[in-house]
């Protein structure tokens, strides 16, 4: 119950303040502010949520509640090459689960985690609107169709030299 201090870099503090200001510091804009903030930082670490809370005058517990409720928001930094596996209905019935397991095995991480070297992170999403190509995997902005567990190694190899 002692005085709690949250440390933030000045540049980051100003960035968050500007984002909040662009939404008039309205508490009702929390989700929009978090979207913009995540866009800017790539993820939403605790100290960033503390600043958002203070700027919008909402309890930081509420901010954390929203961040953990919506799967879009993440508190972990994404890898240099974020991998998203579609587990929507079409992809799922065509074997997305096996593809996902293979990515987990190859990278030795769970969904939501990032490799120790910061290169890859793994997440699931629901439908990218390319069901004809199911199962679909996205790495960064690039989309791969009809991916099989056997093809996983090949995809990763494309990024390992870079």
């Amino acid at each position: 119950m002692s005085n709690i201090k949250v440390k933030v870099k000045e540049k980051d503090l100003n960035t968050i303040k500007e984002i909040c200001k662009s939404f008039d510091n309205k508490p009702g804009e929390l989700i929009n502010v978090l979207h913009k903030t995540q866009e800017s930082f790539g993820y939403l670490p605790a100290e960033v949520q503390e600043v958002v809370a203070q700027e919008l005058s909402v309890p930081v517990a509420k901010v954390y509640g929203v961040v953990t409720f919506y799967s879009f928001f993440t508190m972990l930094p994404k890898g240099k090459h974020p991998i998203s596996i579609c587990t929507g209905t079409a992809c799922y019935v065509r074997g997305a689960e096996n593809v996902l397991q293979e990515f987990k095995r190859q990278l030795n991480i769970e969904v939501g985690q990032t490799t120790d070297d910061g290169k890859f992170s793994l997440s699931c999403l629901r439908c990218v609107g390319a069901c004809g190509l199911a199962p679909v995997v996205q790495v960064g902005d690039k989309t791969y169709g009809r991916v099989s567990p056997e093809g996983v190694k090949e995809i990763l190899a494309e990024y390992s030299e870079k």
Partner: protein
Amino acid sequence: MNKVKLTIDDKQIEVEKGTTIYKAAKQLEIEIPVLCYMNLEGLNIENKPGGCRICVVEVEGRNNLAPSCSTEVWDGMVVHTHTMRVINARRTVMEFILSDHPKDCLTCAKSGNCDLQNMAVKLGIREIPGQEYAEMSKYKTDFSPSIIRELDKCIMCRRCEMMCNDFQTVGALSAFHRGFQAAVGPAFEMDIEDSPCTYCGQCVAVCPTGALTEKDHTRDVINALSDPTKKVIVQTAPAVRAALGEEFGMEPGTLVTGKMVSALRRLGFDYVFDTDFAADLTIMEEGTELLDRLTKFLAGDKKVKLPILTSCCPAWVSFFEHNFPEMKDIPSTARSPQQMFGAIAKTYFADKISTKREDLVVVSIMPCLAKKYEAQRDEFKVNGNPDVDFSISTRELAHLIKEANLDLNKLPDEDFDKPLGESSGAAVIFGTTGGVIEAAVRTAYELHTGIKLDKLDFEQLRGFEAIRKATVDFDGTPINIGIAHGLGNARKLLEEIKAGKSEFHAIEIMSCPGGCIGGGGQPTHHGDSSILKARAKAIYAEDAGKPIRKSHENPYIIKLYEEFLGKPMSEKAHHLLHTCYFDKSRKIEID
């Protein structure tokens, strides 16, 4: 057309537009079972997230069942509250809730007083199909000086979240995660100790399960009572006597002062004293401080801090330390009655019975969970030895009495011991909202004007409205008084002060609904605010029946000043009876 007609279980009724099915049914004396829903009528505290789905009913012409707590009625609506479809749905809902709820009911702190358990009994649940598919969350138990959180027992009714955010505006708790992992807690799942929690305990007061309970000190008290080398003394807060009887089947509002004293003596306490004695002492100190500031103010001193704010409520103290640290020189510096009692017990009284501080154990019985935290604050310790060793709640006292095989109903009425057991009626009303300021007015008026009051009942200071304002004429000097119960209401008055718009000379603040009678350590009200009102009535009845009704006329208080303290606000009084406050706000700093 602000009225609508509808039919519930073949009975017709006309209600206001916007009424929910649940409330309309209640008017027909049809009690629909609810679990997450809670309504403390008259206190503006309502929780209706429509989340648990226990209260579903069938509405003709609607395909799915409607949650009655949050569905508004319409003209011509036909409702059925106990069709087979409804009963089956409630059972299924309950089975789902129980499928991922721990099954340690036998040893759970809430056993026997749990809304979830009661509902399982009501719905006749005998098996829980599907639990093999349910995933049990595995949160670690969070221990704090006041509150214990076992999040695996959370059923997401969100009553605690509503109390913490909407009523108290503390904002320590929020729902997080989803599905089986969903629970309510502080940001980043930090311990409650690191959050802005004030330990008001209102989350515990409304929790329907064992997810939120108090830090139990009954074992510590039993150990102290069993130790022949210790003298163990007890103090009881005013609100306890107006509620303890409920735990023994008595009507809410039954005063059990004499029986409580009797029970404590039989439990083995060496001296049974009264926090009310210290409440009288608080009035002497706080009242003098008020008069001191007022006199300076009236003499034209612009630097004097007004309004003066009461400081008896430890959750309120934490609240301004966290949220308004820049105003920490406004509240009275007087310690709370619990702590004044402890300080006097371990000096003045310890001397009287020739007992060393270390061999004297002070136990307090409080309607409050924040008192547990307050008792272990560093300011209230001497060489590590606390002025108050253990603070237990009204509920814990009931457990102790039951464990000792005593039936409160059958005990004789006995009197408190002297000298720290004598008190005035002014001290008794500390237990309800408006009581502290009324007690202060009774004393401050007479000391300031030198005129004896004809009428001691200041009706204008009483009641249950969230924020009350009254002006008391101090023989030509109008004194503006504000009263708030609930920290959200207190916040409004603080914002006024901050903006320089406050019209008050003195403000009383209590954190809990109705004041201490509605404290987080009291017998569970299960959402019935009439219980709180009955307790308040009992408190005023005890005051009216007291031979002495003004703090400054308590002969043992007069003696305490003569023998020991000198006069109010003396150096000794400052040392033992006053305190200081700290800035506990969260600060964002540049790295």
